[in-house]
């Protein structure tokens, strides 16, 4: 029987013993990176298509913004 660690290949060079490999990225890290990447893409798309590209209070759709004749906005407008 030939010792696989000492066995040579066709060219005669020695095969080195296999070194321990570093562990791969855990699954929870991959899933988290994917989720964060998707979230960033959604935020960028929202900013570009809905927010006009500039960051300001209420750009995420939260501003009541336009003064109206009823509701909370009206009370701010007349305060």
């Amino acid at each position, binding site marked *: 029987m030939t010792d696989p660690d000492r066995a040579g290949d066709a060219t005669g060079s020695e095969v080195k013993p296999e070194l*321990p490999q*570093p*562990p791969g*990225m*855990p699954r*929870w*890290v991959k899933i*988290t990176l994917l989720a964060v990447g998707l979230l960033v893409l959604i935020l960028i798309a929202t900013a570009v298509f809905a927010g006009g590209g500039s*960051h*300001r*209070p*209420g*750009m*995420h*759709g*939260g*501003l*009541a*913004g336009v*003064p109206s004749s009823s509701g*909370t*906005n009206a*009370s*701010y*407008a007349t*305060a």
Partner: protein
Amino acid sequence: MQLPPSLRRAALTVHVVTSVGWLGAVAAFLALAVAAVLSDDTGTARALYIAMEVMGLAVLVPLSLASFVSGLVQSLGTTWGLLRHYWVIAKLSISVVATGVLLLYLSTLRVLADAAASPGLADDRALLPSTSPVLHSAAAFFVLLGAAALSIYKPKGVTRRGWRQQQRRTTAV
């Protein structure tokens, strides 16, 4: 560099207190932000926006910076290291991003507080009430909750760098 045990415990105490305090302060900020949007009383809502700015400057920013710095000390001064474990890197990233967004968001809080403090200006009518603080603080709350969970569960996973250091230590022994 390893911290001596007494110093390590002190650093851990500072880190836990400031991190949990930050999470609690964000929850309190979220309550103010929701109350400001839902309030029928304009005066109350205005006072809440002014209070939010004070809270951001006086509570959230100091706690976030203290949590970040104490986290750095904690990881560099213990065997966990800064770049050896994925959960430490994830928590550090959360801390950096959350602190950065908070510092950038201070200018928005200033605009809202100024608008709330000056009734009758055009800005006032255009900006208030705003759900922006609700969205930002709700997002911050869940992100910081994730950071707290990472600290408790410490999910497995060593980086290449951490693995190499482990190998070196093993061969040295």
